[in-house]
């Protein structure tokens, strides 16, 4: 079933993120994706997320699509102007990519090209609108297209560490949804019980909610996130659990898998984020019984 149909049928969707290589060695990308074929609904290909220069999402998406894996491509406004964005969108459609997530872009300060100039010609809402316009057969300047593309567009919810921030994030999201986003992806959730109220709030947006499940690779990573991201709901309990484990790699996989199970009847789907450990995705899916 395609991701689009899965959304429409209100069945639980399972997505996973696979990053493009920083370089031209695509063997990992393709191997990792192949091993997921048939086990998940679609692979999300981020585009130079967080300002790390790598192979573009468009190329990555096309490669995966060629492997018979449905792809969702990230697009955002930091690195390209409206010309490039529209051009890429048309290219994506022609090359078989039907899904686009308009993602929030991190600022350049933490980039590995921190002296690069951010473009930000459009903002995310504008970009979604632009995509909708393209679908109607026009470009942003109102010129007719020779054939209109078609996409399922998603958007992301900004991370939040307080109710106030959540409300703000929801406000922004609402605009994106009005502009045409058909589902929303949350920031990573770690302790399911404690993030339920927030999830409920997010559901009020009225579009399917896809929760992000993040693979904790080690105690240090868990501590890092707990310390550096105030909103991440990593509980002391969770930290203790990882610390106690003699095989932390497996423990992280188990936690991710269990979280997927716990989210099954609570949201419309999950995105599994492994940041480099895409080869562990099948194990997570095993634990989650998918």
């Amino acid at each position, binding site marked *: 079933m395609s991701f689009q149909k899965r959304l429409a049928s209100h069945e639980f969707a399972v997505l996973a993120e696979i*990053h493009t290589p*920083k370089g031209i060695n695509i063997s990992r990308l393709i191997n990792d994706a192949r091993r997921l074929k048939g086990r998940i609904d679609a692979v999300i290909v981020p585009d130079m*997320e*967080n*300002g*790390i220069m790598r192979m573009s999402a468009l190329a990555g998406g096309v490669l995966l699509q060629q492997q018979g894996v449905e792809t969702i491509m990230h697009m955002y406004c930091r690195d390209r102007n409206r010309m490039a964005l529209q051009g890429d969108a048309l290219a994506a459609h022609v090359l078989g990519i039907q899904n686009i997530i308009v993602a929030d872009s*991190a600022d350049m300060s*933490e980039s*590995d090209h921190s002296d690069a100039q951010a473009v930000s010609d459009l903002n995310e809402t504008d970009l979604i609108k632009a995509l909708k316009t393209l679908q109607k057969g026009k470009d942003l300047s109102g010129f007719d297209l020779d054939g209109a593309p078609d996409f399922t567009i998603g958007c992301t919810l900004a991370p939040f560490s307080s109710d106030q921030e959540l409300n703000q994030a929801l406000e922004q999201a609402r605009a994106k949804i009005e502009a045409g986003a058909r589902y929303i992806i949350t920031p990573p959730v770690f302790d399911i019980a404690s993030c339920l109220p927030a999830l409920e709030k997010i559901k009020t947006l009225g579009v399917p909610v896809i929760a992000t499940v993040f693979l904790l*690779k*080690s*105690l*240090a*990573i868990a*501590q*890092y996130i707990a310390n*550096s991201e105030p909103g991440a709901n990593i509980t002391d309990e969770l930290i203790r659990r990882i*610390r106690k484990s003699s095989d*932390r*790699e497996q423990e992280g996989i188990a936690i991710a898998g269990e979280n997927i199970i716990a989210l099954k009847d609570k949201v419309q789907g999950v995105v599994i984020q492994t*940041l*480099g*450990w895409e080869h562990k995705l099948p194990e997570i899916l095993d634990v989650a019984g998918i």
Partner: protein
Amino acid sequence: MQNSNKTQTPNNKILVVGGGLGGIRTALDLAEAEKDVVLVDNDFTIGGLMTQLDRTFPTNNCDLCTISPHLSESNRQEHIELMSMTSVENISGEKGNFTASLRTAPRYINLDKCTGCGECYSAFPECVRFTPGLDHRAPTCMRYPQATPQAFSIDLKKCEDVQALVKVCPAGAINPDDMPINREVKCASVVLSPGASLFDPSHLDYLGYANLPDVVTSLEFERILSASGPTGGKLVRPSNGEQPKKVAWIQCIGSRGLQKGAGSYCSNACCMFALKEAIVTKERFQEDIETTIFYMDMRTFGKDYELYLNRAKNEYGVRFIRSRPHSVLQPEGETDLLLNYTLEDTTEPLQEKFDMVVLSTGFKTSEATRELASKLGLELNDNFFPVTDGFNPVVTSKKGVYVAGTFESPKDIPETMVQASAAAFMAASELGPATETVVAEDEDEAAEELLERDVSLEEPKVGVFICDCGENIGGLVDVNTLVEHAAKLPYVAVAKAEGHGCSRISMENIRQTIEEEQLNRVVIGGCSPRTHQAKFEDLLQKAKLNKYLLEIANIRDQATWVHPNNPEKATEKAKDLIQMSVGAVVKAQPLAEQSLPMNKNVLVVGGGVTGMTAALNLADQGFQIYLAEKSDKLGGMANNLLKTLEGNDVQAFVGDMVDRVKNHEKIQVFTRAIIVDHSGMPGMFTTGMQSGKQMFYRQIEHGITILATGALSNRPKQYLLDESSVVRTQLETQRFIADNPDQVKQWENVVMIQCVGSRTQENPNCSRICCQNAVKNALAILDVNPEARVFVLYRDMRTYGFQENYYRLAREKGVIFVRYTTDRPPVVEAEGDKVNVTYYDSILSMNVSVTADNLSLSTGLIADTDSTEELSMIFKLPRTADGYFLEDHVKLRPVDMPVPGFFVAGTAHSPKLIRESITQANAVSARAHTMLARDEINLGAGIAKVDGTRCAACLVCVRACPFDIPFINAEGYSEIDPAKCHGCGVCASECPAKAIQLMQFEDDRILAKVEQLFERVIA
């Protein structure tokens, strides 16, 4: 010896002065990094002080055993030119272009001819300098069987009939016309490691050393304990040859400015030295002897040394008396020694009888070394030790001249080893980055390799060589009985006793025997293959045998050492072990080795001063460095430090270093970097990390990993810390003094409490840095506010080395040092915006209360256990009980980890000062450099092999291999890539078709051991 065929320019050598342990380490590190070294020592043989020690703390290993591989290795190394009996007359020139004038004294023996047979010595003992001196006052006369060079030396002055002496030598090696040789050597840099001498207490009448034979120095006591010493290891009183029942040690003789002529510094190693002697004595005689140590402060500040102190107290029952005895007397007509002393809390004079008194004499620079320093124009301090760089103790005032070991300052063996490696690195860096030297393929060597004898068609012909290892084996069992037993075993062609099998002469004998008798298998009965296998494998190669045709029967560690009270059983067991080895070696087959290219990138984990130093060092040598720092900025703990005890500006130093690191084109810095996975093998590791705010995952390929992850500031919830605003850690105090001098000026009373959270049940070790921190802050407070009354409540003041000078200065300036004991710790209560500190003053025998404006707690360091635990899981490395990384050998390999290619430095190793961390970082650089200089890494031959004809392609090996190496190949049977196999043997033991064998541990070889064992038992 000098057979390197690299194109030599006159000044690309390094001169190493001093052939003690430090000099040997320096020379070895340089040689392994492909640098040419001239190693000079004015003694007849190299080895220095360590060769005279019986055993070393804290492992109580036999020193001769640990040092001997190094000694002969130094001789073997093609890059080292060893010159014994050689002194440095003068050094001129400057960094990069020194000229050293060397003078070699006549030995009167031709080294090339001498076989060390000993005929000259037995005929004319008086004029041959190879005396296991029975005069305990002259321990330096003594040499030992592993001596390098392995040759005698003649004292011609004592010889009356020179012609007779010449005739007695069967090798014709004695040359009475030998002349001193003067020689000039060009070198780029110089490392001075000539050691120090020991304080001579002869002039201190009240200690009776000069006239009471039972008063000895600690080194003499060591000689008496030593198996190779004058008494053959029997502990006896020099006066009457009886075993003593009560031995006392008196500490700080010649140290801490306590006696006439004493250095003002603390000699650093004497406390551990005395503890070791007391423990070894107790171990040997148990209840039969009483040991007492009279001390001022027990200074066990090294890694895990506190545990050693605790063991001495609790397990061995060593008695400790805190007192400085004022005299040792021998009343007329009595044989006992009377020791007079008082305790600190009474004035009552006490007397106690002992039958031996050991003076723990400290280090002192010798006249000769002072002279050497002046020839070089080195600036010396008040105690005649060289003045060194504030942050880099191996760097002297003269560019291009480096120092290491006790010549630099008093220290123990591990620290000497660290400095030696550090100096090696600094000296080598003068030569600049390693350039691609075209090494003309050594044809001789290649030819020699081809000459390996093909023994595959021969019947096994086994040679068994059994060491007595001095007293270690021979002292308990009769080696000849073992030899007779071995001679009767099947296939044994030769069985011999070989004395110290690892000594040069024995090695040479064995080699000759192998060649002469055309042996094709060798069994060594001796010590552990863990330490000596490589050495004997080399020997086999020299004898043109494949090095794997060898078995070592560990009859020392597994028989004589562990069955000391039962010579018969030890003998029988040794026979068993030898017979098992003979059975196994018969099954041994020649094997070929695997090698892999060495990846020359370096991963440095930790971006503090230690990590940055190592990174800069190796980057300057042209290697690519990946520096991973967990936090968001470089600098680590040093970011919180302002000044060192000596007054050096830490912030400026660190700031400069950070800039250099960031701008170095060979260093890639990753901040907020967390290591998450690791794979590969020595020489080609792949490590995955997540870095930056965005947790970008990347994998690094590298051949070397340096762990410099640091430690954490301890912060125990004690003494109102974090509750009262006037209670600070010493670090915070330092900052406060700098930032708020006006407030400090108002302070009336300041209290400091030492050992807060250190030397406790939970954290048993000493944090090493706190005593000097307290002294530093106390002095800083007095600088700002001379009126302040500063109390330091301590358990033992551990201001080792030159820190002692500052301790004394603080006392002089009026800082009040009060000792407390753990059963009566100070009590702290809040009082308004101040705190009230109550402590027990043992001199006044009462509680004293002080209302303090500031309470500084010396909280010290604790291991970053979360980090070290996780990294040790990921990298598979061991840790100490308190969570620091555990090095491969605490004495001899203090910065190497057990996994080849891994090194540790800085406070990740144990608490230490910034300059000590930097020294370790330099040492690590040298150690890493020895690997990075190679293009290949040898993986040995211990890999699994599949017999395709037997393989049933069942996949068991494919599934069982922990590293996923085996696969079913196109021919349909399992294949194991020899370059990838780790050699664990799991596949071999699970293969249901018995198609896999692990080389060196083949089934028939293991089963042969089992069979031979029971053949003997049942027969």
